[in-house]
């Protein structure tokens, strides 16, 4: 279990974290999700002890570790760019934590082999990091971090430096690993798809604060504010209300509360169809419909249609609301 209380951190003029408090349940795989500059990496590094907070406390497994060095916190840390020990073999990399603790050689060897087996790098013991692909290096880094049986596992954008398909593969693999190993894991990422797909809980961060914290489904369906809503999924605005494009309906017949719009584009994206339309006031909106629905509608650019939302899930948007949130 990890808990932070009232953490603040400033770098020069920049307030990276502002009175942040958070609890991460034991054994969970939690994401710290947010855009660049939101403070998520800083928070992770403070939990690791690689940075010290200006104020606040860090509690790991019930122990106040705020003043303890990273060496003594018994954590595992995985870096975005692997931080592999270039001059050591894979075996020596993974064995490092145990070698430092002067474990007997036999114990080290068997544990290294076991871990390499778990991460799918059996047989790579004598290779050097330079001979491994990015994905392999990151798996080695994970094995290395797990070798010392840490209380918590901290991952700093671990898949950020990898190709898209490797990323997808490794992300799913991480989830399976977590299901097997059950270490409390905290994952920093800016990729909402990643967070949504593999985590038990997500803490969304923005500008040094936590916007919302909860299971992925809850964040998606009941976002606490505009930022969370637009960060976690696509949004469209209809009559001052923010909705998900898949919660909008298009009809050729007017109905109560529907808005008149003219179709500007119809984009076929495989299974789903994206209908872009311009409302009376000049704003544009896009609606996600299934192929079947699109065919039934026979929508063409230039057609006049009626757009409505069938669900009262949506966000109140007042004019002059604060800062634009990125549309996913």
């Amino acid at each position, binding site marked *: 279990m990890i808990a932070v209380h009232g953490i603040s951190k400033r*770098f*020069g003029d920049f307030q990276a974290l502002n009175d942040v408090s958070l609890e991460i349940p034991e054994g969970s795989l939690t994401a710290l999700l947010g855009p660049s500059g939101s403070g998520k990496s800083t928070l992770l590094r403070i939990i690791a*002890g*690689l*940075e*010290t907070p200006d104020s606040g406390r860090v509690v790991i497994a019930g122990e106040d570790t705020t003043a303890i*060095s*990273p*060496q003594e916190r018994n954590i595992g840390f995985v870096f975005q760019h692997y931080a592999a020990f270039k001059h050591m073999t894979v075996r020596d990399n993974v064995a490092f934590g145990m070698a430092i603790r002067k474990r007997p050689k036999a114990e080290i060897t068997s544990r290294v082999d076991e871990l390499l087996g778990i991460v799918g790098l059996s047989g790579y013991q004598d290779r050097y990091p330079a001979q491994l692909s990015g994905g392999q290096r990151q798996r080695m880094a994970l094995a290395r971090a797990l070798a010392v049986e840490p209380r918590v596992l901290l991952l700093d954008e671990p898949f950020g430096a990898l190709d898209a398909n490797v990323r997808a593969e490794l992300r799913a693999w991480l989830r399976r690993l977590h299901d097997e190993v059950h270490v409390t894991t905290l994952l920093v990422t800016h990729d909402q798809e990643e967070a949504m797909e593999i985590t038990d809980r997500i803490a969304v961060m923005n500008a040094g604060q936590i916007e919302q914290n909860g299971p992925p489904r809850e964040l998606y369906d009941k976002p606490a504010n505009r930022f969370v809503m637009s960060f976690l999924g696509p949004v469209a605005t209809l009559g001052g209300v923010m909705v998900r494009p898949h919660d909008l309906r298009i009809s050729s017949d007017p109905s109560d509360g529907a808005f008149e719009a003219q179709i500007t584009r119809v984009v076929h994206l495989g299974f789903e169809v994206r209908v872009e339309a311009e409302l009376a006031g000049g704003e544009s909106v896009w609606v996600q419909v299934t192929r079947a629905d699109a065919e039934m509608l026979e929508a063409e650019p230039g057609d006049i249609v009626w757009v409505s939302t069938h669900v009262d899930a949506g966000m109140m948007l007042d004019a002059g609301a604060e800062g634009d949130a990125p549309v996913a």
Partner: protein
Amino acid sequence: MSTPSISFARLGRRKPSTKAYVAGRPGPLAVGVVMLWLSVIVLLPLSAVVVKSLDGGVGEFWDAVSNPQAVAALKFTLIVSLIVTAVNAVIGTLIAWVLVRDDFPGKRLVNALIDLPFALPTIVAGITLLALYGHGSPVGIDIAFTQAAVAFALLFVTLPFVVRSVQPVLIELDTDMEEAAASLGANGRTIFRRIVLPNLSPAILGGCALAFARAVGEFGSIVLISGNIPFHTQVASVYVYKQLESDSPISAAAVSVVLLLLSLAVLLGIRLLGRFTSR
């Protein structure tokens, strides 16, 4: 070969990362030890020179520095160093160009030999040049005891500076730019002048600064071939040496201070250049 201070510009750009728990991060004790080391070895003696030069007051300092022979030595040193630096700027760049862009049998050997003046003791360089271009020269050239000889010796010892400064930049240079210029109709000369040269100038200037600093202070390679004729081929470093030998320490110290100021100016110039180019 190392280029001083050019790397410092990169130091300044690093993100400030905090906290000394992380290993490999030296604490204040290490900083103190290094400072102590530098103070004892470098700063202490140099400050002694400055203090000594003022031992007889500003008046004596001024007399020592404005002494006609001192002035002649300093003037000659400055002029010949500037000429040598200018020559190096051109020929050093040319040699770097040939070593990077051209290929011929023995190129690797030639490349390795460029560092020879850097590795060879200066006195050996002096003897070597004297043997070849002095009295009894096998090629019949005798320039010993002339100002040309001093220039020649300086060209020898400063050879590696511009070449080694320009080479890595030339290697890293993105040839895409040159190809783009060629596709737009520029010929070789224009491409060199407008594309390559501007990108090389910081390196050339850096190498020149180092060469200049070296030339101004050079002693060992000059002391034999120049004949040390006062008012003619005597350089500042030899003048200082002679002053010391003839038991005029204050005079020696005063002229040394001038040389020191020159060195500092060059170093600060390199630092500013580094900061400017790292943007």
